[in-house]
């Protein structure tokens, strides 16, 4: 893989300054549940779409991570968005289409996408944001 590695290194060097910026800032942290339940329910396409969106929209202060089973397998794929002070919003039954809306509205616009949160799925009205 020698030839292409050189090409990757070039792409990389261009990006390096942005990366430093990313680690310096306190932006959103997005976590996708990636246990057997999440994977079977379609977490991988959600994860890949999220990565694509973060790259395409150049969201340098957003970090994407994975976790194991979040505990509500029937609501998978689950995506958790943590804000700067660790407040958490949980999105459930996610799809690649829905994650695009979350990126645009929540990660870029700062506005929670209420209809994808747990409040609607359980039929109860609770604050979608759980304070740290």
């Amino acid at each position, binding site marked *: 893989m020698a030839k292409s590695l050189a*090409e990757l*290194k070039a792409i990389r060097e261009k990006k390096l300054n942005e990366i430093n910026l990313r680690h310096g800032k306190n932006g959103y942290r997005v976590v996708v549940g990636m246990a*057997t339940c999440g994977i*079977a329910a379609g977490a*991988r396409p959600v994860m*890949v779409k999220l*990565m694509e969106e973060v*790259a395409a929209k150049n969201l340098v202060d957003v970090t994407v991570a994975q976790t194991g089973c979040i505990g509500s397998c029937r609501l998978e794929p689950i995506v958790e968005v943590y804000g700067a002070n660790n407040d958490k919003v949980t999105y459930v039954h996610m799809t690649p289409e829905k994650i695009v809306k979350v990126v645009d509205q929540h990660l870029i616009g700062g506005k929670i996408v209420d209809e994808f949160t747990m409040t609607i799925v359980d039929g109860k009205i609770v604050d979608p944001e759980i304070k740290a």
Partner: protein
Amino acid sequence: MKELSLHILDITQNSIRAQAKLVKLTIIESLAANVLAIMIEDDGCGIPADKIQNIADPFVTSRTTRRVGLGLSLFKAASETCGGFFRITSEFGVGTKVTGTFNRDHIDRAPLGNMADTVVTMVMSFEEADLIYEHDYNNQSFIFDTREIKETLEVTSLNEPDILNWIREFVREGLEKIMEEE
């Protein structure tokens, strides 16, 4: 699981939870021998001898949040349904090897699926751990090794969108190439 690659993604998560530093994934496909074989080998903490006997039992798991563990049992069922075999060997403190084989033309065999997306998702969850992925298709082989990339870029984690995008394309192109019709 709709794709075999999702089983692979799932089982490598076990390796990461077992603190593996290196995971080796080997896929061998042979049309002549009608075989598709998947091997996942790690250097994680391993499974104690008294636990391995019924490890693929869905009601056996090491986690404490609940009493079911489906990953290995689903993979075992998938391979045995397709006339293949499932095997797991482990040495406590050394590592674990999981193998599943399939009759390639079996009507119930799920497609291998999107390996490029699976590899990218694996790399995202691996952090410091490394992946060697070798795919042999009718004796043509493709190899991907995260250690090589980390060395070239002088980084310890590949979890950056531009690197991940490159990896995805690299795997996609590499696999396309070995699967080309002669």
